[in-house]
């Protein structure tokens, strides 16, 4: 039996290879791919601004990168799930709680999908959300400060992949588990009991409309499968969210073979308005849980971590009219709803055709009970009853679809390394263009809003091979920018990305740039360790802790001479940047620190913990070139033996000799 199955899969792979050859796997050469006026279309003159912000997931670097388009210039890498020694994120005492989880401090994650906040289906420029794939989490990034404001862990989840995919008024951020696992009281079961014991969850996380604060409204208990991607309904389909899934075979091993057996898996349609009714009617069940909820406070410049203790669970197998399954060929990856909200595109990564479902037909099928039985207690809508039509021979390995403002769709084809443009109404392929190489996600600015911006499509590629100067075995990851203003797509630019880019979103710069924070008002600084002026600078001993309340301004620290620290002391440097001007951070570094530097924004207080381990005079200095006298911005800390009776003393500007 086993042999036969493996043989079948080998045959499948063989067919794919043959197909690939037939389609022409090797793309055109560089010379034929780029057009003559490409340079002028991506040239952003020195001192002028880009047209768009592009927020690109960092994948296994756990961060969110910010690029300008059309130039492809990298502006900033926002630390989210991974520590960032450059910014002190995850190293300063104030930011450490951001990375707390039920497993303790987790300083890394795999961040795949950013999505904007929306108002009336349009990008509102307030927040970007991004998922943490490995230790399931969702983060909210503030687009005023470009900092991570909140991270919420997801309980009853094992890999938060189908997330965050925000609803049209930012009612919910969703979080579907990639892996199903045994849930509830008895989780010590044999892996062989997958079909009996393994379950998945789809979480709906409420977003407070004014503060943005996250809280899990409810989780849907789903059959054991792998949940992949998601997209919110809009317009007529507002109130629904759609999820893709694979492994409806419920395989537990060699999934590349055993989870690819069935002709169809499912698009899952979730009526979250109905779910809200059930929650209101008290139909949910409170499950005990343990998950961290971390929030950054802009006034105290500090994060706090709270451990939540329960979560509300709804069971769709018992609560009717809330969850429906639509068959979708074959191991669908992307599910994308077009700007009108009527068309739902499934991308079966192993399928020859791409189905487009119609929301109105789905609703009619539900009303007519045009069902094809049940799957694990959930109604399965007849494929043909929900189907609008199929895109034939689009390409090999369709993954994701984006939309422009003219009724066209753009689908990434991983196996055939290309973007295929097709018309949503007549489902005809209009154009295809190679990518270099193996495109994963793609992005049209505003594609998931009701009003796409269009103009460009950006490819995020998995492989670059010969595109850039070689850098050893690991090569740069890359994105490619294409002009989509004409009928034919045109390649304009390659630009390297940091980490591995998965999904990305983009919007006009106008929505964000004028709100950007320039500095924190020192008067509003509520950090308990702030020194608001040199008068408040001091050094205080508390047992074996020494707290240094330090200020920094161009170009000195106060105090910059400190004595009375003893071997074994924990020294906390609470550094307040007294500057009140844009783009004037100060840094702080001390010899032998086991963590990182601090990078303190104007008006901010940040704290570095440092252990005194040996006798001597230890230098510290500013790491961020701040003025012509930056090199002079330094100081000394004297460490005496543990039994010493050198008293605590500190000064600045006292240059007399002993």
């Amino acid at each position, binding site marked *: 039996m086993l042999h036969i199955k493996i043989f079948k899969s080998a045959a499948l792979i063989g067919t794919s290879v043959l197909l690939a050859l037939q389609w022409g796997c090797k793309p055109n050469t560089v010379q034929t791919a780029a057009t003559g006026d490409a340079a002028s279309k991506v040239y952003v003159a020195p001192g002028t601004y880009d047209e768009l912000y592009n927020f690109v997931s960092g994948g296994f670097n756990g961060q969110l990168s910010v690029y300008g388009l059309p130039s492809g210039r990298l502006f900033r890498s926002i630390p989210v799930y991974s520590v960032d020694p450059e910014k002190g994120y995850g190293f300063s005492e104030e930011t450490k709680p951001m990375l707390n989880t039920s497993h303790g401090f987790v300083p890394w994650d795999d961040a795949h999908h950013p999505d904007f906040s929306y108002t009336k289906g349009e990008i509102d420029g307030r927040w970007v959300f991004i998922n943490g794939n490995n230790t399931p989490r969702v983060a909210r990034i503030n687009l005023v400060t470009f900092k991570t404001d909140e991270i919420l862990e997801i309980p009853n989840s094992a890999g938060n992949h189908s997330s965050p995919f925000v609803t049209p008024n930012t009612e919910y951020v969703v979080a579907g588990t990639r892996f199903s696992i045994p849930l509830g009281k008895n989780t010590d079961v044999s892996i062989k009991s997958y079909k009996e014991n393994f379950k998945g969850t789809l979480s709906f996380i409420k977003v407070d409309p004014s503060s943005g604060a996250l809280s899990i409204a409810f989780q849907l208990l789903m059959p054991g499968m792998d949940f992949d991607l998601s997209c919110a309904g809009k317009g007529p389909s507002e109130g629904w969210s759609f999820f893709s899934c694979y492994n409806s075979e419920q395989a537990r091993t060699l999934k590349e073979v055993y989870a690819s057996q069935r002709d169809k898996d499912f698009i899952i349609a979730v009526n979250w308005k109905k779910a809200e009714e059930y929650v209101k009617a008290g139909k949910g069940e409170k499950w005990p849980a343990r998950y961290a909820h971390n929030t950054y406070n802009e006034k105290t410049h500090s994060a706090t971590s709270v451990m939540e203790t329960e979560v509300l669970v709804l069971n769709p197998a018992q609560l009717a009219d809330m969850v429906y399954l639509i068959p979708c060929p074959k191991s669908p990856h992307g599910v994308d709803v077009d700007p009108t909200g009527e068309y739902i595109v499934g991308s079966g990564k192993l399928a020859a055709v791409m189905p487009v479902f119609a929301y109105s037909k789905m609703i009619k099928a539900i009303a007519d009970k045009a069902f094809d039985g049940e799957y694990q207690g959930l109604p399965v809508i007849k494929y043909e009853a929900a189907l609008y039509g199929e895109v034939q021979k689009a390409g090999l390995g369709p993954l994701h679809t984006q939309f422009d403002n003219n009724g066209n769709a753009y689908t990434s084809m991983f196996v055939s390394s290309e973007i295929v443009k097709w018309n949503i109404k007549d489902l005809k392929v209009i154009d295809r263009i190679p990518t270099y190489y193996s495109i994963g996600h793609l992005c049209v600015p505003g594609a998931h809003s009701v009003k796409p911006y269009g103009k460009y499509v950006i490819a995020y590629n998995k492989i670059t091979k010969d595109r850039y100067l070689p850098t050893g075995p690991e090569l740069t990851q890359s994105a490619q920018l294409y002009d989509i203003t004409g009928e034919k797509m045109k390649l304009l630019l390659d630009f390297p990305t940091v980490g591995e880019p998965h999904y990305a979103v983009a919007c006009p710069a106008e929505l964000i740039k004028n709100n950007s924070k320039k500095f924190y008002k*020192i008067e509003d600084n509520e950090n308990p360790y702030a020194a608001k*002026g040199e*008068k408040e600078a001091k050094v205080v001993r508390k047992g074996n802790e020494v707290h240094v309340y330090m200020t920094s301004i*161009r170009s000195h620290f106060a105090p910059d001479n400190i004595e009375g620290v003893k071997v074994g002391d924990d020294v906390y440097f609470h550094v307040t940047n007294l500057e009140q*001007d844009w783009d004037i951070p100060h840094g702080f570094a001390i010899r032998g620190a086991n963590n990182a530097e601090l990078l303190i924004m104007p008006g901010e207080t940040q704290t570095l913990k440092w252990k005194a381990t040996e006798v001597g005079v230890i230098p510290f200095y500013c790491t961020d070139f701040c003025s012509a006298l930056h090199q002079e911005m330094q100081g000394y800390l004297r460490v005496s033996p543990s039994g010493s009776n050198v008293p605590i003393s500190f000064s600045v500007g006292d240059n007399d000799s002993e």
Partner: protein
Amino acid sequence: MKSYKILLASCSLLMVISCGGNKEETKDTSAETKDIKSMYPDQTAATDAKGVGKFKDITLPATLDSKKADAGQAIYDMKCSACHRLEGDRLVGPTWKGVTTRREPAWILNFITNVDEMLNKDPMAMAQLEECLVRMPNQNLTDDDAYAILEYMRKNDGVK
């Protein structure tokens, strides 16, 4: 970017001319601004003791508004004291001792509220930067803050 240009220019200037002593006490400003104006003929504003900015003709009462001066002291403690002494010589920036007799009130108000433009255009401010080499941070102070600081400077200079 502009600030860097000036900074670099200032550095090279240092090698050519000697830095000089305590120029804060100079009454005749034409001497202290001559070099700067020859270096940046297109950039520097015409010599004007009132500086560059919205404050033009400021007349202050002869007596001190001590409440305003107290407010000025609070701002000084938080945002200015790191670099300016109330007496003695220059620390990072010039001493505040005698500043209200060295400079017009309008110049002081313009420098506090319009520091970047002043450092880029005003010959006296540029000459001061040439000596101090650290651009005065723009502390984003309001007009009211600036008046309060000016009042505190006057108190420091003996106005009752």
